[in-house]
């Protein structure tokens, strides 16, 4: 469903090369983890998938369900099924959480030629999902992420993911800033969404998250390249030995 071929990416502003030839195939329903040291290009990969224009693709391609992802606008990618859970969810004063959720859901439905949700249908979906993620009605009444704790913001990201039902969810260091209880809530939310039609790309620095969201494949990213791929046991090996081997290899 997703194939990244020889992807080279640099920062548009200063032309620093970040990704130097990534090859990655993700099949339907698979969970892939990308691990790597700081600065290896993990977040860049997630932003390029979502379509942030701070980056420039100099070589390579990304094919998503037969479509050339790089030619699509961020909102078109979302409507096609790509979702990025942000490492640092943004606060938007003045935009009510419910207004935002409804606008996003209906925009995607409209883009796909589907009927807009009725208000009762929308409310029902939000209530059910929020309950599972321990998101209080009070949080939903507030402007998006304003005054939310780190854990609340991450749960809010998962809420959006659950409501938007993407086919590819990219999770950028979703575990950062979470204590173990919050991590469990988030992981439960993600696991509940796992299914044969939904693939995940889980980006993390630490193995800890992968105890809760168990991946099918693990890749090690270093200096802009995938330097090793393996099964879930690779994560444990990295936890024990650190990234020193790979950092050395890349340099």
């Amino acid at each position: 469903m997703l194939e990244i071929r020889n992807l080279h990416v640099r920062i548009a502003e200063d032309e620093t090369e970040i990704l130097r030839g990534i090859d990655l195939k993700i099949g339907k329903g698979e969970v892939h983890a990308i691990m790597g040291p700081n600065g290896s290009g993990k977040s860049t990969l997630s932003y390029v998938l979502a379509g942030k224009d701070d980056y420039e693709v100099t070589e390579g391609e990304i094919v998503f369900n037969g479509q050339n992802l790089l030619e699509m606008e961020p909102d078109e990618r979302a409507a096609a099924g790509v979702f990025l859970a942000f490492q640092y969810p943004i606060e938007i004063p003045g935009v009510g959480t419910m207004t935002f959720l409804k606008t996003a859901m209906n925009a995607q439905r409209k883009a796909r030629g589907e009927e807009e949700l009725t208000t009762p249908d929308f409310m029902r979906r939000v209530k059910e999902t929020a309950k599972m993620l321990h998101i209080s009605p009070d949080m939903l009444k507030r402007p998006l992420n304003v005054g939310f704790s780190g854990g609340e913001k991450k749960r809010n990201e998962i809420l959006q993911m659950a409501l938007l039902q993407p086919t590819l969810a990219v999770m950028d260091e979703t575990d950062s800033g979470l204590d173990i209880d919050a991590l469990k809530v988030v992981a439960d939310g993600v696991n509940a969404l796992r299914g044969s039609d939904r693939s995940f790309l889980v980006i993390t620095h630490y193995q800890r998250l992968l105890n809760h969201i168990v991946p099918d494949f693990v890749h090690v990213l270093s200096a802009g390249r995938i330097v090793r791929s393996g099964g879930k046991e690779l994560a444990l090996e990295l936890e024990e030995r650190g990234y020193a081997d790979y950092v050395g290899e890349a340099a």
Partner: protein
Amino acid sequence: MATPTRLLETAAEKALAGHFEAIPEDDPIRDVRATAFDVLKEKGLPHRRVEEWKYTDLRTLLKDVPAPAAPGDIERARAILAETDPLADLAGSRIVFVNGHFVPSLSDMSAIADQVEFASLGRFLADGGAIFERFDMIDPAEAPIFAMNSAFMADGAVINIKAEAVLDKPLHLAHLFVGADAGLQTLRNLVSIESGAKATIFETYHGPDDVAYLTNTVSQVHVADGAEVRWIKLVEEGGAATHLGLAMPRLDANAVFDPFTYTAGPVLTRNEMRLTFSGSHSNAGIRGAILVRGNSHADFTLFVDHAVPDCKSREYFKSVIDDTARAVFQGKIVVRPDAQRTDGQMMSQALLLDEGGEFDNKPELEIFADDVVCAHGATCGQIDEDVLFFLRSRGIGEEEAEQLLVQAFLAEAIEEIGDEAIEEVLEARTRKWLGMTEVVE
């Protein structure tokens, strides 16, 4: 006449002189008009070298002044009122002016007949204008809008909300301009809110988009001890119109006055507010929103006089500027030597949607007392690219995301009004300005 006379030289100034000449000799307040007009003759229209008008050079911006407007077609006004006035549904009583003239048949004060005394200004002018002695005056030389208004005022609302009266529903002062010919409508409102009374007042302005009419409106407002007033002014004049407004509220002790001025539409707008605290423990929340696009120009100039101790003022203004439009905010808070324990917090923020726009922001604090809490802040920026990307990553198109963010920006000020029904109307006006289709649920 002994007054040194500046040669009235711009087309607008010459037009003003011509219109003044046309006022009949036997006009009952000819002396009041002449005193004011002498000031205009002496100084001409204000221009960029006059400090308070530096960013709104009326001499350049005002191309012409049409002749005082004839009464408009009342049936046409009735239809427009029914269709377009967004706040009308919330009001319980209504005073309607068409082309600057009071229209009894469109007005309805029956619901508050026991609580509010009302007469149109026309009646008081016939008596020679003694009514003005009951309100604070201002030197016309210091206030060109006031001078122009005094020279040409034709009608207005004289309102007295009786002591302890509590109006269940807002009182609506609706102003409509109708017809295809430009005209000058000059309104003077004299509003007294007696002690302990509570009221919400709507003051709205609408007119056709393609007629270069001019509105000049001055409201002298007295908020007595313990009275509480919320005042929503909606300036949605037509796109070729000019709106010059001046509000002069004076607050006695323990009073609350919360005005909100929403401006979207006219090609040229200058709204001034000169608010005076004359009694202690009063509270004013002065807020507003300016939405400008095309080549429009909108200015809000505020002067808050903390003349007595223990009063609190909050000033919060938002401007959204698109295309090559220009918005101006000037806010001056003066804290007099005796006005200890004054609390004044002023914030003005602008959002530029296009690189061609301009925002001029001039906050001033003049503090002569030593025990005060005063602050001002100003921001001017564009839509945050990271926020825009976030919204787009959730499937929201660029245009819709921008609209959402403009609404959010204005909502921060609108939500301080503290009345959900009014807030919803103003937010709907923003959606209309943004060209969004209304979702009927």
